[in-house]
């Protein structure tokens, strides 16, 4: 499909499941709003890369994963983590550098790891998630698991993309590569720095590929299910290009001045939450519950203790 085409309506799962997908997307949106707010207040340190606008991709894909599957996310990874069920409390605590964070405050926004929730890591090097998931797929092949890599359009110009997709195809690894094409690699329009079509790069490696509407959570779920099933069945890796858009700048220092006039409004009209609500109907109960949940998470996070410097911190597992 091309970007200009209207999204075709996709099959909506039953109300309970649809509401769950919506709930997860809303948690991510409210979480990112919170992070932005706390960042501006100086509570979140360093930099942040927010997932607002892209929620349907992570939520749709992660909704079809099994217990023995694994995911590698990006430095724009809060959405990937929350979609997998990482506790918002542990994640926000991590961003605030608190001892109760999922990584004890050692990792921060860009490098979250939560193995209990199948997140092998978020990777601050563009394309790093592709490498990690490729290796994970090599291990998971033995036990019927599937590895998913999320990455942006920018990563498709990295060596990791070309080398790892080739590697995965040659060894028929159970990997699903999900490119979140949000139109910009940092501040630069992707068309300006990307030769040819992104999907064609995977296709030429003989990898089953789809380009989908990344703002339609139900469509993402259906496409991901197909890809994950294929990978699990031993048919090798799959590639999904999900067309989407981020509402905020690349990172904290980016006011997004490069956007084309009207572009943000156009995409906001296609907001994944609005579209899910249109399909579901009344979501008031979930809306209230998520607001209350996030409010509580913020309160707890701000009260959590900071980690104490640990003179015995180890570099090696046996050290």
């Amino acid at each position: 499909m091309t970007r200009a085409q209207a999204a075709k309506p996709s099959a909506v799962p039953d109300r309970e499941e649809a509401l769950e997908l919506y709930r997860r997307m809303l948690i991510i949106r409210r979480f990112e709003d919170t992070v932005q707010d706390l960042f501006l207040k100086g509570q979140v340190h360093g930099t942040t890369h927010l997932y607002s606008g892209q929620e349907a991709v992570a939520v749709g894909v992660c909704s079809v994963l099994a217990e023995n599957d694994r995911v590698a996310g990006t430095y724009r990874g809060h959405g990937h983590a929350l979609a997998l069920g990482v506790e918002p409390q542990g994640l926000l605590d991590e961003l605030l550098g608190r001892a109760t964070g999922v990584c004890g405050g050692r990792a921060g926004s860009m490098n979250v790891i939560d193995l209990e929730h199948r997140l092998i890591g978020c990777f601050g090097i563009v394309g790093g998630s592709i490498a990690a998931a490729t290796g994970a797929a090599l291990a998971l092949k033995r036990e019927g698991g599937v590895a998913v890599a999320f990455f942006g359009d920018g990563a498709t110009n990295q060596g990791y993309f070309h080398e790892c997709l080739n590697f995965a195809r040659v060894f028929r690894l159970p990997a699903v590569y999900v490119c979140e094409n949000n139109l910009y690699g940092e501040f630069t329009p992707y068309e300006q720095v990307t030769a040819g079509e992104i999907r064609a790069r995977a296709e030429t490696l003989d990898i089953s590929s789809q380009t989908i509407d990344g703002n339609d959570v139900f469509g993402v779920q259906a496409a991901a299910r197909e890809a994950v099933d294929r990978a699990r069945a031993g048919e090798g890796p799959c590639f999904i290009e999900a067309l989407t858009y981020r509402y905020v700048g690349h990172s904290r220092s980016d006011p997004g001045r490069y956007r084309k006039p009207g572009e943000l409004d156009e995409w906001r009209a296609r907001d994944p939450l609005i579209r899910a609500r249109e399909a579901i109907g009344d979501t008031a109960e979930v809306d209230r519950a998520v607001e209350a949940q996030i409010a509580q998470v913020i309160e707890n996070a701000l009260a959590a203790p900071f980690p104490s410097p640990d003179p015995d911190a180890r570099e090696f597992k046996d050290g």
Partner: protein
Amino acid sequence: MAEIEFREAIRDALAEELERDERVVVFGEDVAAAGGVFVTTPGLFEKFGPERVFDTPISELALAGAAFGSAVCGLRPVIEIMFGDFLPLVMDSLVNQASKYFYISNEQASVPLVVRSAVGAGGRFGAIHSQSPVTWFQAVPGLKLVAPSTPSDAKALLKGAIRDDNPVLFLEHKRLYSLKEEVIGHGSEVIGLGSAAVRREGSDVTLVSVMKGVHDCLAAAELLASDGIDAEVIDLRTLRPLDRGAIAESLSKTNRLAAVEEGPRTGGWAGEVLAVAAEESLDDVDDLWRITTPEHPIPYSPTLEDAFLPGAEAIAASVRARLGVAAGRS
């Protein structure tokens, strides 16, 4: 027990660990069907099959990424990066990901992978197939660095590296591959990483090195013996973690130490050894210095390369000069 070559010791260690632990996998360029370009992996593919031992594309980013990701998910991969000079291509996975994982994950998991790589000059391979890139990696917390000098150690340390829960860079010097030795301990010995070995006891000066340099130091010690200088030779065996105790212990006897490094002086591991000596043993120290290669790329021509490397004669001459002893005194 029959003597085996260094390269056979590598193969035997891999075979025994593949046999012992089904999580161990071996992959790299030409390691399976061809048996390795330095003939370090023959027979493994035939014995363990393509799921455990396989040839990869010439694709170091993918190789290292696959090692990292699979180690996080339960395998214990051993990959071969054909020449140490290619290691810059795996730096992201090794330095940015694997080595930091244990700490930044708040100890959720470590990354039990081994990167084997052939290093070292003297083979007329030129500037970009001859380096010993230890110091590119020595400043990386979370990464272990192994640099064996003998077949026995190569086998026992490689087994130790594979059983180690942390990422390990295992360097094999090209000019040691054909070195033969009777492998001690019936070949089943495992050496934990981080301990040095005294290769020759002496009382006048300590020579510290790794890999090929250890043999050069031993040869230099023989030359020095004829001058009445009794040199101790320490084989560090691992460069991270560094066996600080072994350095201090030797210095307490000899009071003089030269670190012999096949690499440039600036920023080299020899400097680290001297720093440790100064920090921990200053009262014992009469002299500390480095014997290294010149500060230019490794040349190709045999005459240039031979002159470039710190061999036994050069080491002995440096010690004599430093101790103020003329050659052939006794």
